[in-house]
């Protein structure tokens, strides 16, 4: 009884703290809240029931010029036109999601079921979640697990991971919008890379084709960008929440776009992937470079329907999570609409 009282007191203290800080999970926040977030610190999230932690970094709201100028070396037409974007504050994973974290989602419940252990089965809200079907071989493709970035999951799987993570932590986690991703990757810079234009410096910040020895690398071994985010350039390319449209930037109305996002439909492809990878040349690692997922990423999946959870060729693709301070209206309740019946 006594510990229950202590818990109750702690809960009210927590709520009081939340209201003082202006932290709000699903109620609209005032402009004052947006200011306050800038004073918040990074925090560690522990996946409940495990000792596995990941770190979230606060990203202050602001405006930036999204896309790249046509004279930037490596520029691609889908990065035009450059346009002003305003981003609301959010937290972002300091590192890409690792296998340590992803395995909790993808395999833990299966282990419990398979070994006939009887529990602890996750009840309640988690019952509504879906889990990846088991992959046929080695989803890490021999690159190792642990602190290696998780790879080869589909967009649908990355989206469902976020939903699972939100359910088990009680906080709203999701994939970044493409605009949030580029804003965070630039970290205030206007150059091709967050550290400038000089490719000669890239190796200090990124794993890419010329220094990765043909494999993804343990997260966080290179220099972070100015906002403390690691591996935004290179290592694994990262899923964003947006559907990909090469002309998306020209569809945005003139002036400043606030939190632009191209909402996904039920098609399996194409979705946005950002940041380039360990297997890419420098141009693909630029802050503005955009990549679209495509069905060739499952070309060696011999089953029909092909898996909606695992790609066979996406060994260069992973993701990181964000947590909005205040979720924008259009993204509330968003979830992947992809099913086994979904078209390519």
């Amino acid at each position, binding site marked *: 009884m006594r510990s229950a009282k202590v818990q109750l007191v702690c809960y009210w203290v927590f709520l009081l703290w939340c209201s003082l800080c202006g932290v709000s999970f699903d109620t609209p926040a005032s402009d004052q809240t947006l200011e306050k977030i800038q004073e918040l610190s990074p925090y560690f999230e522990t996946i409940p029931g495990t000792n596995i932690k990941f770190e979230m970094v606060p990203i202050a709201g602001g405006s930036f010029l999204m896309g790249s100028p046509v004279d930037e070396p490596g520029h*691609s*037409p*889908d990065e035009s036109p450059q346009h002003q974007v305003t981003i609301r504050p959010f937290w972002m994973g300091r590192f890409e999601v690792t296998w340590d974290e992803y*395995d909790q989602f993808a*395999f833990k419940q*299966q*282990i419990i*079921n*398979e*070994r*006939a252990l009887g529990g602890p089965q996750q009840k309640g809200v988690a019952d509504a979640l879906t889990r990846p*079907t*088991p*992959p*046929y*071989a*080695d*989803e*890490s*493709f*021999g690159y190792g*697990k642990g602190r290696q970035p998780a790879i080869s999951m589909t967009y649908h799987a990355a989206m469902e991971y976020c939903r699972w993570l939100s359910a088990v932590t009680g906080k709203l986690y999701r994939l970044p919008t493409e605009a949030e991703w580029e804003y965070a990757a630039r970290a205030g810079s206007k150059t091709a890379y967050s550290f400038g234009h000089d490719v000669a410096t890239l190796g200090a910040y990124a794993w890419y*084709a010329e220094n990765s020895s*043909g494999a993804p690398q343990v997260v966080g071994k290179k220099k972070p960008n100015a906002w403390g985010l690691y591996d935004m350039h290179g290592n694994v390319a990262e899923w964003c929440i947006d559907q*990909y449209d*090469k002309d998306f930037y020209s569809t945005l109305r003139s002036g400043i776009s606030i939190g632009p996002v191209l909402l996904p439909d039920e098609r399996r492809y*194409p979705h946005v992937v950002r940041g380039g990878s360990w*297997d*890419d*040349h420098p141009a*693909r690692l630029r802050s503005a*470079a*955009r*990549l*679209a997922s*495509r069905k060739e990423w499952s*070309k*060696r*999946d*011999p*089953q*029909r*329907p*092909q898996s909606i959870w695992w790609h*066979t*060729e996406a*060994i260069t693709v992973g993701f990181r999570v964000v947590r909005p301070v205040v979720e924008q209206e259009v993204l509330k309740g968003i979830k992947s609409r992809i099913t086994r019946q979904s*078209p*390519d």
Partner: protein
Amino acid sequence: MNAQKHSRRDFLKTSTAAAMGVTMAARIKAMPGVYAAGNDSIRIGLIGCGGRGTGAAVNALSAAPGVKLIAMADAFKDRLDESRKNVAETITKQIEKEAEGAKITDKFDVSDNHCFVGLDAYQKLLSVSDINYVILATPPAFRPAHLEAAVAAGKNIFTEKPVAVDGTGIRSVLATYEKALAKRLAIAAGTQRRHQTGYLETMKLIHAGRIGDLVAARCYWNQGGLWKKDRQPGWSDLEWQMRNWLYFTWLSGDHIVEQHVHNIDVINWAMNAHPTSALGMGGRQVRTDPSYGHIFDHFTIDYEYENGAHLMSMCRQQDGTDKNVSEALTGTKGNATTQASQRYVIKSEKPWQFPRESDNEPYQQEHVDLIASIRASKPINELKNVAESTLTAIMGRMSAYTGKRVTWEQAMNSTESLVPPKLEWGPLPMPGVALPGLTPLL
């Protein structure tokens, strides 16, 4: 489509250019000749409409022009319906991208009276005289009977691996192989690594002596668990087992046969031989719930070849354990490692590496090669190779189940006959888990 262009990896490592030349040449050679409309059209019947059978049908329909799916058979109506819908939708989308005037019935024309359901559905399908190409993709238990009937009916065959679950089945398959040769029927097997450019190039070098004489090998299929279907009210024992066929030795051969046969086949291919004996162990350690049938969840086998070389083979289906699906060969002058679609590396005086970017789509290539061989009247027949690799895996399982060293002759002449002689929807007791030292060697 600019993004797609840019997403292609434009960097290739050193030695790539030469290897690319070889690859492209191999691909061009594998392309069927320009299709002349007429009697060399391929008319497919699909037997076994699960995920793989459906995938194989799509692969075949995309492999060459003049190929059409005209009949389907499965034990279960729901599986057939789902498969039929999936192929129709996939091919419709493909057609849309092709030339004006192309219509779905050019590739997919499966009428209701060409859909066969039940345990004897394969016989009904094989009696459709228009069919000249069948895809056999049911659980392995039925493969010997299906192969025999398909050859008797004069059909060319794509058969999934493995091709049997016991020595009795293998003897039947080898007899069928001889009959197919005599009838000049073409047979390709779903051991798709033999149609994968990276493996083909690696094997060429190994067979040319690049790593010297082979003295040892390793192969692995270590992974987590696979799918399972919860038993539904109204399912008989047989239906429950067939819908969960992976977990019953009579249906799948156990995972060493069903899955690991791929890696074992690579070593047999490299050795140009099959092992002469096996000494293995294994068990059912963590996947113990009866809903997972009675198969093992891990095996390790020490195989010996006639030249004295040993193969260490490992396979495991346990979640949360380290995974590895690959092969390795040690020779007197170097070694080779292969991992499908991922890495093909030779270390020797002349090191070599096949670039992943240049690898092909083996699941489609096996149909490209099969169809080309039919049209050129030079029928390929891979049944003996896949039968020997299947028996290699069976020999390993027999050793692990019984605890005895098992020779090739013992496996080949085994009286073990796991498939019930007469199958009917109804009760079918599940065998116990094999107990080494107690389970008899038959």
